[in-house]
Every structure is written in structure tokens, then in C-alpha cells.
């Protein structure tokens, strides 16, 4: 946008609103991060104070690094998240394309079928899922988690992507068809790049619950070698005592990779991706 189009009053108002909301958004995060570096008594006595030389403590991080194998947990979490995400995006986008691009009998019903999954918590299927995994020998493997998360992420991905794909210009796809591109090429070389912002959005939405999930790692892959970060951090949540230093430390650390992934994806939120296409 140009200098002429940006009005001072408007941008002051915009910044005021954003700063206000950013404070609301970040204040609790600030509390978390500040307290991750404090000793327990200081967390509760002066929750808002910055760590001082007296109250500064890395005890949480020490506990985290001394107990369990957090490096490995991080690696597991990353593998599971990234692979599941890739599958969700690919399969989800393909199905979304089929639903949004072609009119075939049962199109809407298929859409509904693929949306059923967001209507019941997948947790309820735990026993059956676990039985499948036991039967196929996938218990305590990352594959089990990847499969479950792929299935879990698909409905939402399809739901959102198909809506965005509907707004890709038909003329563009038609130009591809006239150019002799197969439907597959049209999907991969034309449609996918043009819904990049939507893909990024879906990626972020899919990644978060996967990364933060506790239940399926607990059920399907609780072994030491396949533990995820979230599951690892649970070990500090006891029956009567929770080691908040360690929980905060572990989960604060756990934000970092998702934040990085978020930043990577959000770079795909590009403006004007379709501009110049049609008159």
C-alpha cells in the first residue's frame, strides 16, 4: 500500500488495538516464561517479578535435563508432527480438491462423511485403535502415532482446504486443461501453490494438537524410546505434587519448536498470490 493510502489516525488506532490485544495475548505467556526461571517459592510469592539474582533458578531446566531423555523426546515429537503433517496436507489437499473441483454423485455426502471425524472425539475410539495397532505390531512405534494423527487431522484439513480451493479461478484451471495438463498436474502445479496461505493455516492448526497431545503417546507409544515431549513433561505432574518448575521448563522448551514451525508456515501467508492472473 502506498503512503497516500495509509492514514495516520487509522494506523494509530490499528496499532493501539493490536498492542492492547498483544498485551492480553502475551501477558500470561510472559508470566509463564518469567516463572520458568524462578525458584518455586518465588513463583508463588512474586509471580510477576522478573527473576532476580536471588530468585533466579534453573532448577526446572536442570530437572528436565537430568530426568528422562528430553532430546530424544523432542526428536520423536518432531518426527511425528512433521510426518503426520505432511500426510495430512497431502492427502487432505487431494481429497479437498476432489470435493471442490468435481461434481460427482455423492459429492456433498462424501464431504459430510469426511467431516464426521471432527464430530466425535477420536479419544473414544482408543480401544479399537489400540487393538489395530497391537494387531499390526505398531504399538510403541512412531508410525502408530503418525497414522492416528493423520486420520485425526484429515477432516479439518479437508473442510478448510476445500473451501479455499473453491476460490481458485476456474479460468486458470481451464487454461491448464487446455494446455493439456492432467488433473494431477493441475492439482500439483496450479492449485496447490495458489492455496498456499490456506495450506499454511491448516498446517498450523493441525500441528498444534499433534504436538500437544498427551493421550495417544500415552496409550500407543509410552515406551521410553518413543515418548514425546508432552508425555515426557507429564512425568513431573504427580498425584499430589506437581513439579511446576520442571513442567514449566519442559513445556516452555516445548513451545520453541512449534513456534519455529509456525514461523516457517506463516511465511507462506503471502499476499496477492493470485494477482495478475485474470482480468
Amino acid at each position, binding site marked *: 500500500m502506498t503512503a497516500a493510502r495509509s492514514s495516520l489516525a487509522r494506523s494509530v488506532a490499528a496499532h493501539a488495538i493490536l498492542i492492547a490485544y498483544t498485551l492480553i495475548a502475551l501477558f500470561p505467556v510472559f508470566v509463564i516464561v518469567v516463572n520458568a526461571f524462578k525458584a518455586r517459592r518465588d513463583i508463588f510469592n512474586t509471580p510477576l517479578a522478573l527473576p532476580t539474582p536471588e530468585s533466579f533458578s534453573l532448577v526446572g531446566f536442570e530437572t528436565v535435563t537430568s530426568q528422562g531423555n528430553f532430546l530424544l523426546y523432542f526428536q520423536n515429537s518432531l518426527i511425528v508432527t512433521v510426518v503426520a503433517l505432511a500426510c495430512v496436507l497431502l492427502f487432505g489437499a487431494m481429497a479437498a480438491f476432489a470435493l471442490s473441483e468435481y461434481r460427482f454423485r455423492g459429492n456433498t455426502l462424501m464431504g459430510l462423511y469426511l467431516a464426521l471425524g471432527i464430530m466425535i472425539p477420536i479419544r473414544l475410539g482408543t480401544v479399537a485403535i489400540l487393538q489395530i495397532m497391537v494387531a499390526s505390531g505398531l504399538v510403541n512405534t512412531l508410525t502408530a502415532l503418525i497414522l492416528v494423527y493423520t486420520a485425526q487431522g484429515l477432516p479439518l484439513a479437508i473442510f478448510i482446504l476445500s473451501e479455499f480451493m473453491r476460490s481458485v479461478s476456474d479460468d486458470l484451471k481451464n487454461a491448464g486443461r487446455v494446455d493439456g495438463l492432467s488433473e494431477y498436474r493441475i492439482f500439483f502445479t496450479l492449485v496447490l501453490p495458489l492455496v498456499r496461505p490456506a495450506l499454511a493455516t491448516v498446517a498450523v492448526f493441525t500441528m498444534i494438537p499433534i504436538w500437544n497431545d498427551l493421550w495417544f503417546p500415552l496409550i500407543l507409544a509410552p515406551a521410553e524410546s518413543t515418548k514425546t515431549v508432552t508425555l515426557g513433561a507429564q512425568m513431573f505432574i504427580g498425584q499430589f505434587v*506437581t513439579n511446576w518448575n520442571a513442567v514449566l521448563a519442559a513445556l516452555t522448551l516445548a513451545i520453541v519448536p512449534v513456534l519455529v514451525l509456525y514461523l516457517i508456515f506463516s511465511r507462506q501467508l503471502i499476499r496477492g498470490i493470485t494477482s495478475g492472473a485474470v482480468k
Partner: protein
Amino acid sequence: QQTTLVIESWRNDDLTIWQQTLIPAFEAQHPDIKLQFQPTAPTEYNAALNAKLEAGSAGDIITCRPFDASLALFEDGALADLTDLEGMGNFSDVAKSAWSTDDGAQTFCVPMASVIHGFIYNADAFAELGLEEPTTTDEFFAVLDAIKEDGTYIPLAIGAVDQWEAASMGYHNIGPAYWHGEDGRLALIAGDAKFTDEEWVEPLRVLARWGEYAGDGYQAQTYPDSQNLFTLGRAAIFPAGSWEISLFEEQADFALGAFPPPIPAAGDTCYISDHTDIGIGLNAASTNAEAGRTFLNWVASSEFAELYSNALPGFFALSNGAVTLENPVANEFVSWRENCESTIRPTYQILSRGTPNLENDNWLHASNVLSGAETPEQAAEAIQAGLDSWYTPGMYE
């Protein structure tokens, strides 16, 4: 050849104790058996365990919740029958009752520990204010008044939001003195007593009075908040379970004292809730049953009792052999067994089998009473009505 036993537990808290004390001790004696302690967050334990048992991916050794949860697993054939385990001989029937069938014929978990309710207090604060440990309810409130008067300390560290605090640390803590321990509990099961009876309502009335001695906004105070209030020296008295001992000793920088639940009137018998809380059993589907039994026998031994009780002061081993405790506060708690009658929480055996769940109702209404949302009488009515809706005495005989 090597076998590895995976132990399922909700005791995340005990991870270090197992890794540093118990497992090395066992493996030293049984080099062919490896142990792997695999705890789950306590709130997820039951659900996760049930799912894994059903699908056949659970560990070999199962830590047992008391009473119905484990009984149900046993009846489903998920837990192995351990009646004939040699080590079982080390336990009294009372100790085994939490993990036996209703008729007591079969036992399926080795009892590990019980926890005792009482009050832990800030001894420095008591000294500073010149207070004595109260023995009767009146004395108890006198002490609370004195602390409140002084204003330095919050008299009582208790919150309502987590509900179970009000039930376990409040109602079940002070109640046995009113309903006369096991007598009252068994009468309830037999249908001879009701929650609306005076001896069951009175402790609720006492509980209702606690509200004014709790901290500001105690309605939104969580259990960890209560713990922190106390260990940070801001509250004087903590209605406790013995499991708090090790944590409080580690975290509090003042001297701790403990007194048993006050008696209603001078001269009354004293009762304590000495609740069988943890057992340990064998997954019926385990392929390492032999090794599992070896391990369980070790758990039943006095060696384990000694190690465990001392590693976790406040969890009192249930085996018959005498255990020497090093921790003075823990010793104080145990010593109450000599003067007071022991009982377990009245809601645990049999009465929580139906819907609505009695224990859950107890939590709910006890916390309502504590927070002032209900009168003790209303609460008692509600609890009893819930129970009556499905329970007829003798239905499980």
C-alpha cells in the same frame, strides 16, 4: 534368561525412588529380572490402563487402586489371582480388604501402603503465637480463632475448587471421630446408618465452619495453592494426608508438627482415617508371570516395606512386620495408630459402585459445604439421595 517387567503406575512422583532405590535393590537380588517403572499422569491412569489392558498392550505389573477399580479389573480377568502368593501371608485381612473380592476369598493385589489423615501445622507459628496442638473440636476452633485474631497467618490452608480436598482432607479426615470409624462405615454399607444421621451431618457442619478460616477467595483455591500457602509459611494449619510429609519437609523452611483429627468432646475416642491406598498386582495376560510373582513376593517382603516407607515417608507399608521409620513427622502419624481407632474412607468399599458415584458426590457436596454453596443438611440429603437411587443394602452379597 533376561525378562523385563514393565510396571504400570500412577505414581509419577515415585519415579526417582524406584529408579534410585527400589529397582537397584531388587535387581541386585534378581539379576535376571529387569524392572521398568512406567508411570502415567495420575488423572489419566485409570483410563489409559483400562484401554491398554483391553487391547493387550499393558505392562506386566499393575499398580492397583483400592477397591472397586481393581476389583473390576480382576473380575474382567485382567488382574491375576494372587491369593496363593507366598508373600500374601505378610498382610492382615484389613490390609488385604481393599484388593480382595467382597467375600474375601480371593486377593489380587499385594497391599503396598496406606495413608493417614491428620493435620500438619507450622510449629514455628504455633510457638510464635503461643498455641498448643488442639485435641478437641472446640480447641481446634479456638486455635483457629487465635491465629485469625493475630492476622499474620491464614489459619487453615484449604480450597474448594479441587473438591477432593474438601472431601478427603476435610470430611473424611475429621468425620471418623463422629461416625465412629469402622462402626459407622459398616453401618452405612449395611444400611443401618444414613448420611442424614446426626453423626454424619455433624462433621459437615464442622467443615462448613472452616470456610471463614480459609484464605481469601478459597472457593477458587486449588490443592497446589493450599500446599504452597502452607509451605511458603503463609498458612498455619494444613488439613493433610500423610503423603504430604516428604514434600513439606523438603519445601518448608520452618518446623513441622502434626496432630490427629480433633475429637468432638474431651474424653471421646479418637479415630483416624488410615486408608489403604496403593496395591500392586500382576497383569493376567503377562507373559512373564513367573518373574512377576517373584517381584511381587519381594514387594510383600519386609525389606521392601522398610525401603519404601522410608523412601516415601507418609506412605506406610501395610505388611505385618514392624518397620522403623526415620522421619519424625511420619512417626508421629504412625503413632496415632496406637491411641486411635483406624478406619478407611467410608465411600470406598462397595458404596461407590453405582451411579451417581458416592465418592464423587461426596467431593462435590463437601466442597459445596466448604464454599458455602450448600448447607450441611442439604448436602447430606443430596448425598444420601444419590446413594439411595441405586443402592440397596445387601445387593452385593
